[in-house]
């Protein structure tokens, strides 16, 4: 019988906060294009650690108001991305008796965002070239 292929995707490093990794997603997040909310969340965190509300506001700004993440979507995406090892908890604060948890990009998350950016850029360049747009 064939020896077991080692899946590189399941090589998620044991986190300092294992309890944040609710869903152990071995699924093809590293192969499929990122969905827009995930892409924007990673983009937001590329500038530095950010808490949930900060990410929400930043995503609205990055997308020039087109994408408005709500809490449900945001935390579903954060949970998924941290399960895939793309982000991790940076630190926590209590502000006005409320928990504020800061997330940061992991090296794997940075790689994934870089790859996704290259893919989108190549597609955009191809489209611009064929449409005869000035900046092709």
């Amino acid at each position, binding site marked *: *019988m*064939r*020896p*077991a*292929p*080692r*899946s590189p*995707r*399941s090589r998620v490093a044991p986190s300092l906060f294992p*309890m*944040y990794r*609710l*869903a*152990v997603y*071995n*699924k093809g997040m590293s192969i499929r294009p990122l969905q827009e909310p995930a892409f924007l969340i990673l983009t937001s965190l590329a500038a530095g650690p950010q808490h*949930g*509300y900060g990410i*929400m506001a930043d995503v609205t700004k990055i997308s020039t108001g087109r994408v408005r993440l*709500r*809490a*449900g*979507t*945001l*935390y*579903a995406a*954060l*949970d998924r991305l941290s399960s895939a090892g793309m982000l991790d908890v940076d630190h926590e604060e*209590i502000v*006005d*008796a*409320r*928990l*504020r*948890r800061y997330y940061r990009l992991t090296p794997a998350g940075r790689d994934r965002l870089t790859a996704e950016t290259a893919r989108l850029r190549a597609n955009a360049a191809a489209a611009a070239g064929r449409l005869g747009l000035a900046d092709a």
Partner: protein
Amino acid sequence: MPDGRAGSGRLERRYRRLLRWYPPEHRNVHGDEMLAVLLAAARAAQEKPDRADVADLIAAAVRIRLRPRGALSDGPGWGDALAVFSVAAPLLMLVSTSLCLWAIDIWAPASSGPVADVSRLVFFGQALVVPFVLFNARHWAVVAAAIPGLFWLVLAALALVVGRFVQGAVDSVEYPVLASVLEVVALSASPGPGRGLQLMRGRHWALLGVAAVPAAALSPVLAPLQSAQAGLPLSAALLWLRAALGLAPAGVFFAIPLVLVLAVLLGMWLSSAAGKRMAVLFGSLAGPYLAIVLVQHFGGAVSVTPVFVAAFAAAVVAAYTVLVAAGRGRRRGPAVRRRIDTGR
């Protein structure tokens, strides 16, 4: 950040109620944080959650509940055991069913009626799960693993209407129903087949290959061979082993496949804590059939009825749930319950 604290008492209660849509594991980790974000994003003096927020929260909660997640796999032990089982069980079923079909083709080609055809369908059902499992496509594997179970449900419904002819087919696919239930549980409650593949070493693959032979000998898929001798599946096992190993059909050899399967399970049980869990999983896959073979060996008469298999599958799933829930209850200490006092 806008001041969302005005009128926040009622709003907070309403948001908390909405957060109950989420599974408790998710709430324990993100609940307070989500509440803080929802309240921070609220307008001044807002008392009711936004409709869009309500829809978004409920939709996300439902999606999270539908996600295959480590519900049963809290703690590496059961999660890893289920992950390995999710890879090994379909492979074992595939190899042992192909051995059975091969035996039927050689020794009882005339018996290829509806029953053998159904066995073939079941075989293809298993064959469908294996590539998905090997390529770690968990969602597709769950769908493929559920097909034999759903197929049996359709047959059982038909049997009620049409009668005996289909009844034979229903009886012959009971075994895959149990496998189907257990595989779906293992696939959806474990970290996934990728983890299973990662954990499996050369000796595990070898054991799987070796165990497939006695498993095939005990398999009810060999039913068409039973006309040769009375009793199922012992006589079929005997017939198959006698021909395959060139052994005489005498006394002690009746029990060879049974003893081999029991030995493999015992070996697993004794090997390690993870092995013990694997033995429980594989034992529940083989359980009803081992019991029947034993009873028949001592002269009793038992037939596997669909109700028996369905009840056994339900009991096994219930037992897993209780076991794991108990384990989780013990582990969930103050560290996970690190809740922030929000004044409630």
